[in-house]
């Protein structure tokens, strides 16, 4: 396969395993590109990308912007806080206004699930979902699986536990779908208040005992506790959460095998993961960040390839 089967990246749900493999192969070469003395290729020089962030983001936004610039795209940035959205403009009006300025691709983060899908139905532009509410965050899942593949050789047959706030996490859902499409076994682990009731229907194992989960797995993906999404108390205290669901050096060393530790960032140091674990050689957190740029370059490049230039009016 040499082309993606989709015209937008709305979620992992819409991708086939072959698409994911193509993205990984392409990202592998982009990783070489971003380690050259001059880290730029001209592929997207006639493409304009709008980054629409209706919700705060530092690393995803930086990572997308860097990926776009490394591909020579023209970039316009927009964040909800400093825009007319706060004056009451609807999503579709905001976006149509931006598209009148001849934007080819839109990278959007939005607090509402399905916002990226909605947009793809109504505007004539390639849409990349950079997170829609607690629904999906496809590029994060792709870079997580890519990092696992890089570290362990392959994803197929590996056992991955996703620990923490599964309920509010778009990273969890996208990761589950992506890992399963690549043939991995997935378990979710966390306090029962933070595990969705019907998560088992996705074909994942459920655990509430971190020690047992870590003994079982090859990779532990520690999710951030999302204080900002939690409208009520899901656990008694941060301290108790850290004790039951946080990883520290002692816990890691008590395990029979040497597991890989991941975190999508930003880290609450001392809560999900202790400082000595985050900075240890078992952690691939900074590889994830570097791979994030390569994966986003691959996604932008492969989707741009589907927008053929027309010289007829």
């Amino acid at each position, binding site marked *: 396969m*040499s082309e993606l089967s989709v015209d937008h990246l709305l979620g992992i749900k819409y991708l086939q395993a072959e698409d994911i493999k193509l993205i990984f192969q392409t990202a592998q070469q982009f990783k070489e590109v971003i380690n050259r003395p*001059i880290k730029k290729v001209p592929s997207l020089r006639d493409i304009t990308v709008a980054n629409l962030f209706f919700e705060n983001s530092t690393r995803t936004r930086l990572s997308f912007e860097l990926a776009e610039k490394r591909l020579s795209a023209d970039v316009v940035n927009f964040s909800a806080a400093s825009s007319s959205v706060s004056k009451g403009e609807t999503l579709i009006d905001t976006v149509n206004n931006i598209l009148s300025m001849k934007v080819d691709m839109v990278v959007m983060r939005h607090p509402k699930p399905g916002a990226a899908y909605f947009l793809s139905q109504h505007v004539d532009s390639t849409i990349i979902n950079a997170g829609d509410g607690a629904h999906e965050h496809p590029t994060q899942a792709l870079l997580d699986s890519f990092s696992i593949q890089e570290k362990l050789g392959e994803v197929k047959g590996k056992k991955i536990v996703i620990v923490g706030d599964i309920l509010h996490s778009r990273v969890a859902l996208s990761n589950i779908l992506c890992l399963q499409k690549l043939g991995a076994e997935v378990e979710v682990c966390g306090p029962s208040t933070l595990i969705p009731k019907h998560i088992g229907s996705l074909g994942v194992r459920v655990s509430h005992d971190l020690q047992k989960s870590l003994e079982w797995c090859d990779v532990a993906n520690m999710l951030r506790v999302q204080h900002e999404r939690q409208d009520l108390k899901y656990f008694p205290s941060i301290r108790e959460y850290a004790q039951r669901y946080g990883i520290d050096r002692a816990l890691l060393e008590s395990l029979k095998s040497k597991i890989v530790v991941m975190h999508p960032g930003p880290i609450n140091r001392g809560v999900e993961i202790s400082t000595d674990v985050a900075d240890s050689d078992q952690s691939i957190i900074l590889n994830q960040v570097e791979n994030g740029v390569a994966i986003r370059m691959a996604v932008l490049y492969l989707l741009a*390839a589907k927008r053929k230039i027309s010289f007829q009016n």
Partner: protein
Amino acid sequence: MNRKKLLNARSIEITLNRLAQQLIENHGDFKNTVIIGLQSRGIHVMHQLVGILESSGVKDLAHGTLDITFFRDDFRRRDAPLQPSMTKIDVLLEGKKVVFVDDVLFTGRSVRSAMDAIQSFGRPSEIELLVLIDRRFSRELPIQPDYVGRQVDSLDGDRVSVEWQGPEAKENAVYLEIGEHE
């Protein structure tokens, strides 16, 4: 389709040996030279040449591979190949003499892309082009090779294919496949 053998294994070997000698004539001990094979078909020619040069006494010959996919000028225009191959260049090319190696020179567009792509590794002091087969009269850009294995006169619908011994071919050979034209 009419398929004609242009070079057999023995004549390819003789040609490559001659090309290697011409390179030695111009580059001496290769201290300031880097041989770059263009992905994907130029890699075989590059490895064969490097082998011959090393057995002729050239030591520590710097060489690498360059993929031009991201620098193509037909991206988004037709069904251009998207899937890149590996680029491996472990030396800085600033001020170095670079020799591009490819199997067939046809329109010259890959070479243009390669000249663009190579700048990411520094500014070479000069770039030369070595090709096993030069299809004359088919250039779309003002690009000419410095070292030529064999010149071939062919028409637009024809195909020149270079096969290397392996799972896909019994022996090294170059074929001219005559296409349909008016």
